[in-house]
């Protein structure tokens, strides 16, 4: 059974239709990359998957692990095992990273009928994941994302993903703004989490990320539709020919 099944998805933001009929199937263990120019609807798709309420779905369906994702609130989707790494992680002054993540982990554990974790058990787990992302332990007690550099914020997203161990991770432009060292660290963290059950959707503008996290499938999103799908080689082709090439294809497809 597929983990994620998107059918004919249409979505509006502020009254404008951004997604115009997306179809996508993701099986357990697969890594899909969604590439596209600015304004193509990549981030909208990520936000709809994460169940942001201001993104209005007007048609179509999404099935996640056999359940209707569109019936879920953001927290339900998270508890069911969907994780989105934010393009712009939010700063939350006044709450430490460790406190926040334990609260999040315990919310999902409770949902799954597991015992909540106390601070004694949680800290070693969090420290282990932070080492994986080469984050200093001082970030434990720093307020969530406050005063973090762009790269530190993105690494912190992957730390959260590592702690929450989702079934499906949606990485929304996690590579944007990263220097090559930070990109390698983030990729290493993401690759360490790849396994036969965990699926990932990498939303990105640039092919560069895919040198480090090699996807099974690449989809090109233009103007709210997936206009081309293929293997990793498609990303390279895009890099050489540019998005205008696919826009031409789309124009052809329309006719």
């Amino acid at each position, binding site marked *: 059974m597929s983990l994620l099944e998107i059918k004919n998805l249409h979505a509006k933001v502020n009254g404008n239709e951004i997604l115009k009929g997306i179809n996508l199937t993701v099986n357990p263990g697969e890594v899909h990359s969604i590439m596209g120019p600015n304004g193509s609807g990549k981030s909208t798709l990520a936000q709809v998957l994460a169940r942001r309420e201001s993104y209005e779905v007007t048609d179509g369906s999404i099935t996640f692990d056999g359940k209707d994702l569109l019936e879920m609130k953001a*927290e339900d989707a998270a508890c069911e095992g969907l994780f989105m790494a934010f393009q712009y992680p939010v700063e939350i002054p006044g*709450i430490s990273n460790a406190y926040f993540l334990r609260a999040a982990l315990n919310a*999902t554990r409770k949902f799954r009928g597991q015992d909540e974790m106390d601070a004694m058990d949680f800290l070693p787990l969090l420290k282990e994941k932070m080492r994986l992302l080469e984050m200093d332990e001082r970030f434990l007690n720093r307020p969530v994302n406050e005063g973090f550099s762009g790269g530190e914020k993105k690494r912190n997203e992957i730390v959260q993903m590592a702690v929450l161990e989702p079934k499906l991770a949606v990485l929304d432009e996690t590579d944007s703004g990263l220097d090559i060292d930070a990109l390698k660290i983030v990729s290493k963290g993401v690759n360490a989490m790849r396994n036969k059950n965990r699926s990932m959707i990498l939303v990105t503008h640039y092919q560069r990320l895919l040198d480090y996290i090699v996807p099974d499938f690449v989809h090109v999103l233009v103007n709210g539709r997936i206009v081309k799908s293929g293997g990793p080689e498609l990303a390279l082709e895009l890099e050489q020919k540019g998005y205008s090439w696919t826009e031409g294809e789309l124009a052809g497809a329309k006719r």
Partner: protein
Amino acid sequence: MITATQAPEKYSEIFDQFNHRATAQPSWLQTLRQEAFARFSETGFPTTHDEDWRFTNVSEVANTPFELAGAETVSKEQLEPFGASQFASQLVFINGLYSEKLSTLAPMPKGVRVASLAAQLRIDPAALEPHFGRYLNYQRDAFCALNTAFAEDGVYVHVPQGVVVEDPIYVLYVTAPGAAPQMNHPRNLIVAEQNSQVTVVEDYVSLGEGTTFSNAATELVAADNANVSHYMIVREGAGANNFSTLRIQQGRSANVSTHSLLLSGALIRNNVHPVLAGEGSECLINGLFMANGRQTMDNYMLVEHASAHCDSRQFYNGILNGQSHGVFHGRIIVHKDAQKTDAKQTNRNLLLSDDAQIDTKPQLEIYADDVKCTHGATIGQFDDNALFYLRSRGLSEASARHLLLLAFANECLDRMSSQPMRDHLEKMVVAALPGAAAFSGERSTEDVERNVEEVG
């Protein structure tokens, strides 16, 4: 309609009766009290025409026939829920009067005096005279005048030169409402001599929901290089009106931190008035107010820079729910000779309902020419991005809101340098936050246990 309220006749009668019971007081205090009452009779209670009272109408307090509260029998068990007994030194006042039976005083370093004002007046009133009534301006404020007129008991702390008192001196003011509306006027004096250090906590609580009027005044003297922390907690019952003035006098390089936590009561007016009189002194004015229902919480800050090279930092956060009304009035006066003043003021407010209201007003009066003064106020609702971020990690909407409120409150709690005090106040804040029950943390089990005990 705004009515000009006068001191009701009633107060004259009560004052006459009070004078009979206070005949043993030293003559300088009797004179001071007479003068203060004369001033109160002259001005009466303030109205909203008065700039300092523009946002808060006190006519209900003015028109209620309060009687002076008397001694009331209270048991230690009744005070247990307030959690003050964890502190080694705990002074308990019932309706403004010291209760020796309920108080515990840990051994103090040599020369430190911690006593009730009444006892000090009996034993050694001369020790009070150099400071008592020297700083609080009853001419300016009718409530201070009334407090001075009825001065009788409160806490007296004197820390000699160079002495450090490690543990907080915790003062619990308990109002036990009677059948008729009652008032009390606690009067405190804290004197920290040169190079000394001390922490004093004032915690105002009620044993009922009846109508009461607590009108406290504290004079805090931090001599040269002294280091003083002051905590003010107001968590009284639904019928409580709590007025307080904290008047701070700072010497050269004295460092004072004040922390206010306003949690409940009908009407709270919290005046904090530091005068940075000695060069190089510093003052932190930190506060958190959380209003609900129809509560009014009015914070009036008056920070006076009277000397050069002084720093003041005001940080007040407000959380307003229901139909509550919050006020932050931040007045800074930089006197002519107070060059190189560095004064900062920040007031941040969260409005959780459509009917909640906040008035925030900075007021800067600068008479020196080489100063740095900044002020800023924000009024907002929940940050949708932050809410979504937390929910996308699995927290329910209620938990996410709770966590964001806690984060907002933590900004204030994090400025408290005493860990036991911070923990003590955090518990109160968490319990008072809207949706506290929805947040499943380790505290929930504690709550369950406590409920079982209460039932058992």
